[in-house]
């Protein structure tokens, strides 16, 4: 029972990251664009790294909005201003979590002008 309780209470998703080209971190005042599957990456971007969000078996804080917010925090820490979802699995019979593969990019243009996902508060 104790093991189950400890397992459930450590309820974050499993995050795997690989930063191939980390850049100086961005401030909170610098915009980060969240691009969903249907949004296109602009030209002339530099790839900063990859993120992968998986279900940690007992994760509960793993809605799409929550994961995208976590991805944005990681992006800022590593100097990326574009979060691009390249693979998205919705909650299903096997998992109650969204599972995402994400690429992070640095774009020198104005990211706020890009068509993008608008984050919501769950």
């Amino acid at each position, binding site marked *: 029972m104790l093991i189950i*309780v400890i397992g459930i209470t450590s309820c974050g998703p499993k995050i795997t990251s690989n930063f191939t080209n980390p850049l100086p971190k961005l401030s909170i005042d610098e915009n980060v664009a969240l691009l969903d599957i249907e949004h296109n990456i602009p030209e002339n971007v530099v790839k900063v790294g990859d993120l992968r969000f998986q279900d940690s078996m007992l994760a509960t804080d793993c809605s799409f909005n929550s994961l995208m917010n976590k991805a944005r925090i990681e992006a800022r820490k590593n100097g990326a201003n574009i979060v691009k979802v390249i693979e998205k699995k919705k909650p299903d019979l096997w998992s109650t979590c969204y599972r995402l593969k994400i690429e992070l990019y640095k774009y020198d243009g104005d990211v706020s002008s890009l068509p993008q996902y608008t984050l919501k508060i769950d």
Partner: protein
Amino acid sequence: MKTIIKATVLSSVILLSSCATIISGSRQTIEITSEPSTAQVFINEVQVGQTPLQKTLKRNQEYQLTLKLDGYKTYETKLKKKFNAWYIGNILLGGFVGLIIDPITGAMYQLKPEQIDGNLKSGTTYKTEDGNVFIKITMEIDPTMEKVGQLEKL
């Protein structure tokens, strides 16, 4: 009849033993005020209004809270998940179901402003009442801003 009573008692024990979920719910009301008021409030970078503001948030998530007001430094903190003491009720009442349910619903947590080394971010005070959190933020003047004038009502 005895069977019905037994079944009722048993199901009550099982159902009512998710203490924190029953008492606190899966969401928590956060009230944010600032000095001066009318600061723009952002939660996870989503603009949600101006102070004073009341918002109901899920207990099983952590949030970034940002306040912006012209002439003042941008204020940033996190709302962190802290242990909700009602969860202990599951152990006291022997409600094993509650030990599982409360973490899933998030009711075993209570959102509170982040503390670093036991200290709140400068300018922050808070109190909890009936499970709700009231946060007061005193905005710090931005020394790089220079007052050039003032508009007055005619």
